[in-house]
């Protein structure tokens, strides 16, 4: 319990630092948001009025405190480009990106774990060899390229889905999931390969250990040894890795969203970056950072629960 509280403390501290870094970075950019909103034709007095209204005349720390307090309450200000509250723009898109990530994550777990176990049980068999080779190749294919290939074969040739035909989750949830499955596969493929590689190696290492031999000598069959003894130990490094994969995918989905024309967080982030719509960029970056930090925290805690050795430390 003490451990969890300590971790929560670190997490909150990291979050504060992240907020400060994000806000600080965007305040350093040369350029006057008031000027870019009013244009060069604006008079000095109207510029000053807008600066006053936007609170740009205050000292940096005051502005940061103000932004921070509002951000905590979920208020990120108003988008320069769309003139609508940033939180409204983002809230709609968060479920899209999270669904994509979770769907890919489920795929990774469902495919890679059974595959690794099969591979280990038939070590050096033809299937194992095949998996190893395929793994190496899949790891080398960038997700946006596999995304293009998937669109081409499943979308254009086989017509299993409509390329670019994103269905909003508000209209039809099943249609939404059906479409998201394909980008999720593109995101998941290289990660599946990595997970299989890691889990397989981890299982093979466990196999050589004393306790496994003891378990065999006690008369357990290989299946019993595998599930009863090795699994739990071999999973420990994999869980850490899966945590990293999850956070990596949240950001990696930015590119996949472009390939599949999905209007998620990534798309908004990309256009806002180019449009220098800083309130939106700040909010999205913070959003993703929070997701990442929370996932990291959960992984740490889970790790602690699974691995008894961690508890005594």
């Amino acid at each position, binding site marked *: 319990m003490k451990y969890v509280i300590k971790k929560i403390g670190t997490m909150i501290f990291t979050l504060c630092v992240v907020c400060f870094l994000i806000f600080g970075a965007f305040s350093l950019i040369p350029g006057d948001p008031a000027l870019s909103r009013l*244009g060069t034709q604006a*008079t000095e007095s109207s510029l000053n009025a807008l600066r006053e209204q936007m609170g740009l005349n205050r000292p940096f720390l005051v502005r940061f405190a103000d932004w921070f307090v509002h951000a905590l309450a979920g208020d990120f200000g108003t988008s320069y480009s*769309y003139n609508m509250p940033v939180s409204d723009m983002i809230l709609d898109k968060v479920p899209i990106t999270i669904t994509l990530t979770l769907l890919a994550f489920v795929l990774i777990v469902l495919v890679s774990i059974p595959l690794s176990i099969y591979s280990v049980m038939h070590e050096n068999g033809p299937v194992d060899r095949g998996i190893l080779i395929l793994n190496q190749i899949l790891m080398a294919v960038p997700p946006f390229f596999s995304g293009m290939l998937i*669109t081409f074969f499943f979308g254009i040739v086989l017509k299993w889905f409509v390329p670019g*035909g*994103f269905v909003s989750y508000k209209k039809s949830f099943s249609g939404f999931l059906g479409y998201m499955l394909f980008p999720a596969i593109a995101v998941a493929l290289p990660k599946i390969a990595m997970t299989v590689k890691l889990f397989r190696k981890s299982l093979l290492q466990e196999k050589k250990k004393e306790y496994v031999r003891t378990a065999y000598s006690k008369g357990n069959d290989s299946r019993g040894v595998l599930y009863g003894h090795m699994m739990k130990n071999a999973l420990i490094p994999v869980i850490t890795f899966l945590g990293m994969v999850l956070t990596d995918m949240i950001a990696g989905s930015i590119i996949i969203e472009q390939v599949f*024309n999905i*209007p998620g967080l990534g798309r908004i982030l990309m256009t806002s970056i180019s449009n220098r719509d800083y309130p939106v960029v700040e909010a999205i970056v913070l959003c993703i950072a929070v997701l990442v930090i929370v996932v990291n925290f959960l992984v740490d805690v889970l790790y602690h629960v699974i691995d008894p050795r961690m508890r005594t430390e």
Partner: protein
Amino acid sequence: MKKRCLKPLFLTAVLFSLTIALTGCSGDKASDSSSEITIGLAQDIEDSLDPHKAVAAGTKEILFNLYEGLVKPDADGNLIDAVASAHEVSEDGKTYTFTLRDGVKFHDGSLVTADDVKYSIDRCADTGNGDPLVSAFSNIESVNVLDESTIEVNLKEADTEFLAYMTTAIIPASNETPDTNPIGTGPYKYVSRSPQEEIVLERFDEYWGTPANIANITLKVIADPDSIAMNLNGGAIDMFMRITTGQMNELSDEFEIYEGTMNLVQALYLNNDFEPFQDVRVRRALCYAVDKQEIFDILSDGKGSELGSSVFPSFGKYYMEELNSVYTKDTKKAKELLAEAGYENGFTFSVAVPSNYQPHVDTAQILAQQFKEIGVTANINLIEWDSWLSDVYTNREFEATVIGVDASSLTARALLERFQSDASNNFINFKSDAYDTAITNALATADDDEKTRYYKECETILADEAANVYIQDLPEFVALNKKYAGYEFYPLYVQDFSKLYVVEE
């Protein structure tokens, strides 16, 4: 909220209809309430849904379906009565009287009143924030409501082109948020939007005129031009305006291609304040370096109508074909001019191009290649549409840009007025006293022949001074799924969705 100056509107002057490649199929026009179409958009509406504040051509062409003025243009470029049922111009050309059409309703169901009309005109004439929203409205002396259905606009000076500006959208005075909740009188009404995703429109059933055929329109934002062909073929969108010939060749036979022209002046616009471009010899050198035919060949299989100045062929009598041959490719001459100007070793400049307009991006690449031959390096800088609007158009922080400038009105004024030295939308910082005199004369005179002569003088000055590297009026290819028909080209940069219909099987 960006306060950029809203420019020109329409004029009766030129009647010029385009050759339209229409489809052979003409089925019954289905108009049941379930009909729908998904249309791809190259960019999201990022300036404003407020018709008086929108500046981007890509925004205004969509808003054309939501809003109407007292008068509006038809597909031939004529001005027809819309919210007004009749209009009358006094003999001295100073008083315009409009009779409102009976029973015209806003999308919220309320009737259009004379007060709404006065409100809309006054709003655009207001000088409280600097320039009026419609610059021609600075000429308005007063707007008077004579009775419930009659409104009178008094001008300070006679203006024969003024009626064209009465296409300014009529909006209800009661709407406090036209920015996010657009209410107009057009054939389609706004339903909802989701940034970078889609804009949803619905047929306005109480429209005063011929109602639209298709009940529901989804305008889907396709931010990545490289995925347009895939989106069309896959069936995610049914229509896309302005595809390239490259994309066209990828389309399956489910699509009909409508061919017209884009009605814009595509050029390499040069910031005349940027050091090398301050020298007319440098600007001319760039013009001599360009082989327009090569651009047409690569970009659109040889199609494209060549331009030599800021007026395109739809403008009939104002268009001067002879200016096209002022500069023909002459590498030697270009190099001489550069040497004279002190740039014998060439120079480097950057070209800002909006990344979502494939034709402009491709043109910029070809230009960069052609400039290499005279030792000039053009670095392409792809930027987002909204950044283009703020950096290039509003703040003029650019060196050169490839873009198409449209005229929302068939008047030479709409295209030429912007190059006055002090015009607020003179984004290229063009400065010429001769030009200023000519344009002032053109605007001042009421005599049509004289007006035309002055406008032509303006065009000639632009060509001689090489204000920009003029290229072409791009051919426009509209891809429409054969399940639909009825696409019509306007001689202006607008889209009329109300004429589209579903082809019965």
